[in-house]
């Protein structure tokens, strides 16, 4: 345990026996070579550089502590917690349905995966997994796969931007815009959707949504061709990414790394195949693998995964077109929220028909509405763990219920949190500039890391 500190501090210098009489260099802006010369003049060989927590290439507020020798990184450590907002604790004081609103804000680049993982876990606790309507499950898969594409696009786009390739960034974000417009059409929001609910989804897809998604897919294919033209034969990109940030299979298993980073070592581990949920076993898709185990192979993998996601999205659209509209929530009225949403003059709210019913004709309906929304439903005591394949790896949701109307404990095993442990292994011995590449190939999102 650390020695008691005399005064409160957040991230001050380490003060112990080993650090007394050690000169400290604080650099904020200025010319790096001046600092290096000053260090050399003083005969100081050990230089520790803080990269972040405010740094454009750290995907948020990641702090990397790099000990460098010249341009070589001799030790790399990651410091996290700068975006910790206590979401898990907050969820313990909200109803099970309100929990969706919180967990969607964890990994904000892939919000629908937290929503689905959480709702599947709640449904498993309630024992209603098989009662969720087919249409709701298809919509969930559709939304997740679209989200996987948009998340991978952010990874590719920002990864390119960090290497100075702004066009990769602009093309990637333009392609992502197509997905976000679909999300806005279906959920009403571009992110923080709270669209997936325990028992189903908040509302059916609006009329014309299937055609809009097909149109968006066509557009995305166009942008993906542009991205491939820009990236795949690009000698600078290859020189920067190949054999950088290597992590082999043994290291991945030891460090619990999943997702594209694990699949870049050749192991086709994907929760959608290993422990199917939402009927993924009925969809026709491949799990792409690569055996390069470096940043370059992860770029190729993410590209290929986007195409596989498009395959699944097309199958979802065919199924949606074949299924009758409506019926996107369990029939149990003690769980399904009385949400008959409609677009009103003041934005989205409950439909006027429903308001008229509960306010004008049925007092029982009003009581039921009030009880379910303010009190929520009770979930039998016990614990479950539900995994979903997140764009960054395996997302695990550990829920404990004490039989009440609120989660007793909600824990999210976020893939970014776990994968960041690999930073040391991927960066040490490499160059400082390669740290940016290695971290980008892990694709951490700090909202998910810190929760």
């Amino acid at each position: 345990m650390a020695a008691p500190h005399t005064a409160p501090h957040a991230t001050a210098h380490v003060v112990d026996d080993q650090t007394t009489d050690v000169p400290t260099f604080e650099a904020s802006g200025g010319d790096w070579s001046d600092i290096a010369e000053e260090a050399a003049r003083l005969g100081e060989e050990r230089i520790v550089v803080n990269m972040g927590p405010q740094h454009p290439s750290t995907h948020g507020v990641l702090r990397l502590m790099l000990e460098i020798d010249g341009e070589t990184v001799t030790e790399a450590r990651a410091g996290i917690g700068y975006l910790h907002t206590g979401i898990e604790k907050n969820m313990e004081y909200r109803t099970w349905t309100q929990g969706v609103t919180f967990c969607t804000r964890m990994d904000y680049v892939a919000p629908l995966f937290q929503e689905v993982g959480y709702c599947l876990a709640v449904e498993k606790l309630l024992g209603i997994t098989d009662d969720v309507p087919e249409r709701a499950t298809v919509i969930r898969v559709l939304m997740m796969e679209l989200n996987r594409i948009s998340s991978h696009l952010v990874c590719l786009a920002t990864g390119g931007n960090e290497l100075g390739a702004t066009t990769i960034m602009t093309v990637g974000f333009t392609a992502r815009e197509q997905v976000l417009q679909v999300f806005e059409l279906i959920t009403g929001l571009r992110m923080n959707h709270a669209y997936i609910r325990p028992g189903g989804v908040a509302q059916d897809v609006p009329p014309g949504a299937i055609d809009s998604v097909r149109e968006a897919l066509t557009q995305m294919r166009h942008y993906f061709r542009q991205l491939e033209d820009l990236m795949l034969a690009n000698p600078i990109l290859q020189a920067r990414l190949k054999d950088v940030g290597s992590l082999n299979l043994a290291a991945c298993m030891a460090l619990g790394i999943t997702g594209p980073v694990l699949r870049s070592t050749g192991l086709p581990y994907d929760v959608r195949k290993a422990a199917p949920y939402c009927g993924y076993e009925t969809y026709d898709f491949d799990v792409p693998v690569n055996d390069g185990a470096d940043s370059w192979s992860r770029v190729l993998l993410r590209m290929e995964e986007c195409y596989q996601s498009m395959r699944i999205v097309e199958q979802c659209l065919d199924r949606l077109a074949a299924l009758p509209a409506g019926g996107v929530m369990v029939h149990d009225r003690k769980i399904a929220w009385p949400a008959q949403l409609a677009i009103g003059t003041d934005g989205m709210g409950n439909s006027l028909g429903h308001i008229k019913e509960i306010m004008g004709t049925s007092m029982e309906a009003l009581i039921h509405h009030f009880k379910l929304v303010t009190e929520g439903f009770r979930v039998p005591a016990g614990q479950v763990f539900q995994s979903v394949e997140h764009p960054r790896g395996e997302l695990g949701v550990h829920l404990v219920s004490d039989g009440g109307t609120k989660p007793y404990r909600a824990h999210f095993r976020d893939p970014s949190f776990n994968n960041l442990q690999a930073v040391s292994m991927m960066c040490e011995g490499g160059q400082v500039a390669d740290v940016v590449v290695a971290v980008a190939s892990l694709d951490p999102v700090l909202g998910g890391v810190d929760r």
Partner: protein
Amino acid sequence: MSAEHRPEKRPAEGEAAVPAGEKADAAAAVKPGEGTTAPAAAVAQQTSAAALEAGSQNVRGDVDLATARTPLEIVDVRTGMFGATGSGDTSGYGGLVRTIAMPGASERPYGGWFDEVVDVLTEVLDESGTGFANAVEYVTVDREELTLHVRREHVVEVARALRDDPDLRFELSLGVSGVHFPHETGRELHAVYHVVSVTHGRRLRFEVAVAEADPHVPSTTSVYPANDWHERETWDFFGIVFDGHPGLARIEMPDDWPGHPQRKDYPLGGIPVEYKGASVPPPDQRRSYS
């Protein structure tokens, strides 16, 4: 509802779960002739049976309560709807008494591959001289998930057996999660581990319970290096000390943060409002549905 069903006041925090009046109710609710031999066990058994009788949340037809080795873990005994005393409960359900119990020990057959895994683990642990019964307190199968409740002294050995035996091969760890049960005297803090066997396509959970007064669990980082940050997180939020961890520092909260915020008794802040010095009380002190 008769008068005895209305307890005078709620059990105080930290007090053993069942107040006298309710215990009598609970005992009365048990069918005559259904009991166990040891008196202490009988009370526990009856309480858990009463939990089921009283419409408790765990309806488990396949477990024979009379023969279950370990009583169900009583989480809470709740009265009324709001957890409020006096006139606070306006719901009309003020006399309601509900005992909440977690799923208890399961009996064989566990079903599916669960039996095979427990058999192999038994073999491995018995061979090493530790003995399955010494290492694993009980096994729970609930909602098609297998949970091994492991004694903390043997958690590293169990983890190593789960990882290394070719018939088990749970090679991928999904980390550690903590849970705080302040009502469970002597076993307040739980560390919950989830592991995956990519080889066999299986996943299970093992759980260690320790007392708040002695919150030490051996670190599993020597078996699963992936648990490094997860154990730091569990230390940070729950105060479980993982002995032998290479650097058990806080990970999410600042280094000098006092206390462990995810514990149930961690004080929460209220929100001051600009009205005659009033404040919105902290979430755990507001009236809420129990």
